[in-house]
């Protein structure tokens, strides 16, 4: 854990703390959403894949949130941050908290997130913060699979039956408004990029657009201009969904403060 203290000492701590919450919360909230499918997927193989992705994401959340707690230096660990923060303090993007909808909607969300997360983590493995670089190197292997797996489903459903094509289009229609937020740069991202901790988010856009174009071609799906962006997740202004997600997720530790599970 020496990297934590050395990196924390030489950098703007509040920005790094916030940045780590963004990384950890994205993974945590998406894992929570994917877990809702467990036991209810269209086939066992898909059930196993979704649980597997959720499990990888929980693992990422544990590492980032534990590290966030160290950087903050107030004695909070990953569990404290996951279960004892309210919606205004969550820093995940709006995309990950969107409802599962049908399997098409879930795959649209997963594909957009994992495609973006792959590009982000390809940058994070080169982070000047050794701990972030280490977590990213481990996670990138998992994310490559999530991105490929969800892209395969987008293609399969887009170029499957007329019904699956329509459902895939509708799934993306729900999610498009949350894409721009992934690339939005604010003072935290600027500080982090300047310190070489993470890539500048706007620099990921052209590769993201290229990946989308290629997947949509294979899926025979139309790519249309994005609607107006909905923003706010990175500042704690979420959709109505997050409060419900947290109510479920945090219920037990909050009902029994001090209990160890």
């Amino acid at each position: 854990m020496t990297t934590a203290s050395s990196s924390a000492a030489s950098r703007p701590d509040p920005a790094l703390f916030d940045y780590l919450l963004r990384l950890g919360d994205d993974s945590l909230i998406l894992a929570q959403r994917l877990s809702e499918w467990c036991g209810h997927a269209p086939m066992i193989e898909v059930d196993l894949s979704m649980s597997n992705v959720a499990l990888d994401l929980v693992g990422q959340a544990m590492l980032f949130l534990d590290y966030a707690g160290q950087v903050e230096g107030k004695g909070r660990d990953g569990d404290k941050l996951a279960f004892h923060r309210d919606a205004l303090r969550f820093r995940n993007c709006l995309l990950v908290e969107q409802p599962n909808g049908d399997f098409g909607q879930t795959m649209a969300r997963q594909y957009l997130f994992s495609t973006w997360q792959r590009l982000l983590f390809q940058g994070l493995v080169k982070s000047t913060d050794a701990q972030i670089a280490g977590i990213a190197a481990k996670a990138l292997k998992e994310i490559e699979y999530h991105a490929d797996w969800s892209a395969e489903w987008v293609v399969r459903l887009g170029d499957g039956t007329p019904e699956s094509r329509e459902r895939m289009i509708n799934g993306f229609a729900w999610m498009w408004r949350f894409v721009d937020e992934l690339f939005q740069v604010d003072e935290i991202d600027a500080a982090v990029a300047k310190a070489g901790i993470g890539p500048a988010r706007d620099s990921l856009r052209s590769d993201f657009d290229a990946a989308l174009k290629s997947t949509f071609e294979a899926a025979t799906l139309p790519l249309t201009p994005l609607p107006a962006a909905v923003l706010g997740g990175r500042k704690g202004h979420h959709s109505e969904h997050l409060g419900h997600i947290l109510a479920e997720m945090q219920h037990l530790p909050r009902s029994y403060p001090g209990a160890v599970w």
Partner: protein
Amino acid sequence: MYTTELQKQPSKPVAATEPQELIDAFEARVAADEFIEPKDWMPAAYRRTLVRQISQHAHSEIVGMLPEGNWIGRAPSLRRKAVLLAKVQDEGGHGLYLYAAAETLGTSREEMIEALHTGKAKYSTIFNYPTLTWADIGAIGWLVDGAAIMNQVPLQRTSYGPYARAMVRVCKEESFHQRQGYEIMMCMANGTPEQKEMAQDALDRWWWPSLMMFGPPDDESPNTAQSMRWRIKRDTNDELRQHFVDVTVPQAEFLGLKVPDPKLRFNEATGHYQFGEIDWAEFWNVVKGEGPVAKERMHDRVKAWDEGAWVRDAAAAHAAKQHSTRQAAE
């Protein structure tokens, strides 16, 4: 788990059309502890019994994802969430290998799932009880998976090769499940008064249904003798149940929890625990589909299957398109 014979009726006798020399050769191989493989000749009744037993086991794994899946979203720490996800995922994996093992006997996964959804096929009675608190996740791992291990370890040597090999893999994972369950119980039994109350309450509710998992008493298991001769079953229901009680009671004592059976006592002479009478009327009601949450379980399974139909159709349609594109290119 979940391999208990839930048929009250004796199996039909071997059809007279089967040649005696084939039957004799088959019986001799089984008696010599050889594995029977999918392409080998086997009596129709053996095949039928195995399909019923393996598919029932597979269904139990899949339905069994629901009571535990109910708590993934509310797991009280990130580590517990990860462990529970991994565990429920394992159950799904067990279901998958078991369906694959049963398919080697000539029945498709779709046919087996259809039989489950129409109520023709059974699954373990234990999953028709609700998971009400986090302690239930501990109790399921400790008691339900503990009982499963006892039933399944002998099945690693069952006579049908694909089933035996599936069991080897399943058993390795079940022992991890049992340990994680017991660890949750230890944590709660040594925790706050509220946690201890939840732990005791979970034991109170899961104890008797866990004993029922071993199936009806031996004198009401008409097919046990045949299944034992065929090496589909290795120990009787009552033997396994007794072994479970003998192992589990000291574990409950170690937790400081009380087993909810006023007649429970250790018999110095036999070296076994004696225990009270199981409520068999409740057991048969649950087998019939009248367990407290049987309706919810079947509703969830049927809904997932029906709502997933368009996804399975799309995957098949896409694969067919890919196949014809490849053929056109060749």
